[in-house]
């Protein structure tokens, strides 16, 4: 991405009424102009400005953690966020769940011909703001344009790179019987916020997506000294899918207390109406942590002092179970399995 080419165009991009055209992905001057006046303007930094086919990163201590995520959310703008900030948060959070501190991001854009440049500008600005907030720099990017009808506005793929301090080893296979399961806040906000905007589902719910960068929260958790085994953000498939993954990877069972799991009443009501279970719904600013049996209080205390962990709660415990079942004591007093979601609850949630 280089803006150092001599401009061969007379007028600036029309960011008010202009549309994405095929030439914006064609490798010619129009593409350079789009990159310079839009992407580099908002996301620019010295590393991005190197302008070569690849970006040379400075040496840094620790092991590298890398994660990649494609974002196809519909609608592109939703209460509490948009595809821009979501594409930053999604990847930053995946790197942070490893215990690493995210430093760099790359972004690939697939734009649809005819997409308003004004909307693209909003998305790029939102990405820039999210990256600034998360403390990561965009160090490489790519833009392609597909014909009208062959895309859906904008798709964004981001890759995150972070560094893991020595001695830290978090992973889905680390949970042991007796460990505690902690959740950072309310479930289902993102998924229900998206659903509330779908044309065939529109309901007037004052529910905002929880999309947020979690690396600040994870840093506070790591600093607490609590012995963390697993951190994971329950995105698609929700808490149920994430805990089943962990149970499977670690070869353990998990027992939950439904009464301890925080869900906003408006989210619960919407789920009720749509026949959904908040445990299956996507989150974009929540995490699950599994820690040593003795460190629950210390961890919760650290989490609750962070704005994104104020509603953190101890929701369950890891148990011995060769079947790898996740079970829950219901508020009603019975017990049930918490299984993976089957099929597709709602396409294009993130």
């Amino acid at each position, binding site marked *: 991405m280089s803006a150092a080419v001599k401009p061969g165009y007379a007028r600036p991009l029309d960011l008010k009424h202009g549309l994405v055209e095929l030439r914006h992905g064609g490798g010619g001057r129009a593409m350079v102009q789009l990159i310079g006046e839009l992407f580099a303007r908002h996301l620019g930094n010295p590393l991005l400005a190197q302008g070569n086919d690849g970006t040379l990163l400075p040496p840094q201590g620790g092991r590298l953690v890398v994660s990649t995520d494609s974002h196809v959310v519909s609608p592109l703008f939703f209460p509490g966020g948009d595809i821009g900030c979501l594409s930053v948060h999604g990847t930053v959070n995946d790197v942070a769940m490893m215990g690493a501190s995210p430093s760099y991001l790359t972004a690939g854009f697939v734009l649809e011909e005819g997409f308003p440049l004004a909307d693209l500008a909003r998305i790029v600005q939102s990405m820039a703001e999210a990256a600034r907030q998360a403390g990561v720099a965009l160090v490489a990017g790519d833009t392609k344009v597909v014909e009208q009808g062959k895309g859906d506005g904008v798709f964004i793929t981001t890759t995150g790179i972070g560094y893991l301090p020595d001695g830290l080893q978090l992973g889905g296979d680390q949970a042991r019987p007796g460990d505690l399961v902690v959740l950072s806040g309310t479930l289902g906000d993102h998924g229900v916020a998206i659903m509330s905007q779908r044309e*065939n589902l529109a309901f007037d719910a004052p529910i905002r997506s929880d999309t947020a960068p979690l690396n600040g929260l994870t840093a506070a958790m790591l600093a607490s000294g609590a012995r963390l085994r697993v951190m994971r953000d329950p995105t698609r498939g929700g808490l149920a899918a994430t805990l089943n993954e962990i149970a499977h990877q670690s070869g353990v069972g998990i027992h939950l207390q439904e009464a301890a799991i925080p869900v906003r*009443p408006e989210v*619960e009501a919407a789920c009720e109406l749509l026949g959904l279970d908040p445990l299956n719904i996507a989150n974009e600013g929540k995490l699950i942590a599994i820690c040593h049996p003795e460190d629950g209080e210390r961890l919760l205390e650290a989490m609750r002092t962070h704005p994104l962990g104020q509603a953190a709660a101890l929701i369950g415990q890891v148990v011995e179970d060769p079947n790898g079942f996740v079970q829950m004591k*219901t508020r*009603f007093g*019975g017990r049930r*399995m918490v*299984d993976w979601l089957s099929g597709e609850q709602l396409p294009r949630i993130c």
Partner: protein
Amino acid sequence: MRYVDEFRDGELAGGLAAAIAREVRDDRRYNFMEFCGGHTHAISRYGVPDLLPPNVRMIHGPGCPVCVLPIGRIDLAIRVALEERVILCTYADTLRIPASRGLSLMGAKARGGDIRMVYAVTDALRIARENPDREVVFFAIGFETTTPPTAVAIRQARAEGLGNFSVLCCHVLTPSAIMNILESPQVRDLGTVPLDGFIGPAHVSTVIGSRPYEFFAEEYRKPVVIAGFEPLDVMQAIRMLVRQVNEGRAEVENEFTRAVTPEGNRKAQDLVSEVFELRRSFEWRGLGEVPYSALKIRARYGDLDAERRFDLRYHPVPDNKACECGAILRGVKQPTDCKLFGTVCTPETPMGSCMVSSEGACAAHYSYGRHKDLEVLA
């Protein structure tokens, strides 16, 4: 009252559980069928059986609209989508029902069928308005609860002159299914399905009222308690059924008084009878051909009937031989009696319809209750 979690209160549930435990007699068993999939789901999701004494057993009934749709009906919907190139609008649950040749509506969608998931029939009307040059077919399934909205849509389409809209009607009737079960040899003569009473439908009864069940109570001597879909409703209904059994009564009682009246919703009933008439016979999965158990669109609205418009002929297709959905829907078998359960048939790759909908007996047991099977083994 927010009507979100009041009927799921753990303390009240504990009180009801204690009351039921006090009232059941140790010298007998109580076998109750919950007719509706909505009850099946609530029972499994909230773990109701954990609160019941061991001699009270719940048997899942056939009241799951997705489960009782036979393969031949799904085939019709797939045919109209793939061959007639219509926009087929359907409720999400139907998308994954296995049909002939390894297809499902989801599979037909991947093969280019324009199949759209809707939450209400009004969405299908909107799609028809927005696509005047395309034929739009609404795949209408469900018991008496979903029938009135379909009737409204058909009238609306007529009033608007929406010439590109039609309905593939698969609406079925609850009382006919209950009657079929009560008349089945397993219940009537052989006694292999001991049935001491029914938990009657919640939402269906808001439409048809509690009267239609009186015949079953009188003629077959089976108590019926109409109950809401919340777990406390179910517990209360079980307590009422236990009392009827203990006192030798067989009456229709209404636990769901906050929504159900004896007469039901007259306006909805009138709408339904204006638009629909009885089919002479309809094939149900599990129950087979059941006379006068489903509805078809009346001749006066015949131009809105997709079966007529596209000359769709129904061909019955047998279920997979190893699939026990039929026996499970009749209460004769339990999901775990089926060899396919949890092995080749899972919610991810369902072989039978009971594994598809979250209201299906197999899916409910697989998703919420299969830890119990292993406890029995261990």
